């Protein structure tokens, strides 16, 4: 029971983070250009701390590689391949949900992470 309550607390934190990430979503204006902001808005549903994608990655790869923003081994082509094809339980995302130009910026952002980012 304690484990479940602790998990609940994590989920609340994750929800709060996402609320900030997608703040001002309506009426929807053109998205900010930065890859980091696009990542939060498009991928943050699942890939922030406590998110369902983060939970799945932790099971498969371990805690250190669960959060995408802490990964230093992602390259842009791989990120784009996963987004358009899906991976394991992750659904593929359409070009309406994440247009190509936005995906380019998200992929570049995730591919730009250096070991120093992981330590943060």
């Amino acid at each position, binding site marked *: 029971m304690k484990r479940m309550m602790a998990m609940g607390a994590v989920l609340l934190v994750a929800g709060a983070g996402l609320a900030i990430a997608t703040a*001002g979503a*309506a009426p929807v204006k053109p998205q900010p250009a930065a890859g980091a902001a696009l990542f939060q808005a498009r991928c943050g549903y699942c890939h922030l701390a406590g998110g369902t994608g983060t939970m799945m990655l932790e099971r498969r790869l371990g805690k250190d590689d669960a959060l995408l923003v802490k990964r230093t081994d992602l390259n842009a082509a791989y990120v784009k391949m996963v987004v358009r094809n899906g991976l394991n339980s992750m659904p593929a995302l*359409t070009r309406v949900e994440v247009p190509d130009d936005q995906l380019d910026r998200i992929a570049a952002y995730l591919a730009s992470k250096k070991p120093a980012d992981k330590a943060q």
Partner: protein
Amino acid sequence: MTFAPPPGLSAAQFDRGLKAFVSVVGPKRVLATDEDRHTYLDPYALGDGLAHQPAAAVAPASAEEVQAIVRLANEHRIPLWPTARGKNLGYGGAAPVMPGTVVLDLGRMNRILEVDPHFGYCLIEPGVGFYDLYNYLRDNKIPLWMSVPGNAWGSVMGNALERGLGYTPYGDNASKICGMEVVLPTGEKMRTGMGAMAGSKAWQSYQHGFGPSWDQFLVQSNFGVVTKMGLWLMPEPEMTMRTKIELPKADDIGWAIDELAMLRLHNVVEHNFVFGNYLHDAAVFSQRDEWYQGPGAIPDAVAEKIMAHYGIGWWSFNLSLFGQEEVVKAKEKLLRRAMEPHLGKPLEFETWQRGDPIEKSSAGRPSVVALQIVNWRGGRGGHIGFSPVMPPDGKLATKQFRAMKARFEEYGLDYYTSFTMGARHINNVNLILYNRDDADMVSRAKGLFTTMIADAKAAGYGEYRTHIDFMNPVAASFDYEGGVMNRLNETVKNAIDPNGVIAPGKNGIWPRAYKGASA
């Protein structure tokens, strides 16, 4: 990857149609590469999902563009499958029933057009997601609460149109629809309810209008493309109290459903809630291999170990009370009186009062974590739910539970179930979790689903909503007087959509043009 154009069209004819769509939305919004088609497949399909492969997708940005596309679809005989955000997960996602259909992706139409903080409603477009509306209400400090389903990745409108559920007193989302704008299969634009009067000032105030009401006609149907929806939102209450109740024994379902049915009927408990078995929690917090690697369904002895590990019961459910403090406190007494003699211990509540952190409240808050369950089996996971509607009767629920558990065991699949309680009914959601790439498991899942349709029909229960694979057999199970309702649906369909361009096969409603095109 090969694909088929819409039935009856050559590749060249289809290509001409797509070029016509480009003239409306531009080249970037007609999505017709192999990769595009792949992204619109059902991500949780039983198998590869190619039996429902669309031929392309087109993404308009306005109701006027929808009108233009629908008119061109008639001219070029191209069937369209409207989807709001494509997250109807477990029911087909964005994929159409009939292969070769073009997905009409409304995700770009994502404006929150109006929120009335005083009278408690919003007017939204199809692409508005639960997170979008939640953030809008929070950022603008609007004291209105949403009703949010278990998977909140999707569209507010799409969920209501599929009769999705949330867990506040406004959780029967289809019942909170008040006024819609719809593009009819001819391309005309109509407004329902009071909106049928040009200049109406009461479109979101009264649900019915003058004469026949068309709103529910557009729910789970293929009679039009909804481009705007009015939805009532719940005024923030003064106080909430919530409690999680665990029932240790499987047979506790009988007394519990009887007590809970009375609490719902008399509005002590005003919201839908999931009365779910232990696997709801276990499949979020762990994977099957951690507990059991053997064949067949998880044995009861292993289930007991899981429950002991997490300190959970065979069944669990969350109950909340909403309203003014005096009302909530009075209802607390009634709830204690009903439940505590059975439980043998006092209920423990978490109380929220206006001004406290919202996390302590029973407000609907979006989350996607429930999707974790598809990872129960590992690999490319999926889930599909068979959800017949039944009366909220303890004896019937016990019988149904025992029968369905035995069916899952017969097919070697883990029994994940809830008896989700509405005002006067139960949605008995039997969820099958599977690895899409395990052909034997997929075959058993299909077999179980088909058997459950027959079992439910024999018991007098029918489904409230279903996956695109099973829309025909579920529609066929509604067979009073030889299926007269299905014939009426198709008579209406053929009258208002003579070319059958809007969502052929949706909920088993087939237009003449494509009758027999897909099973």
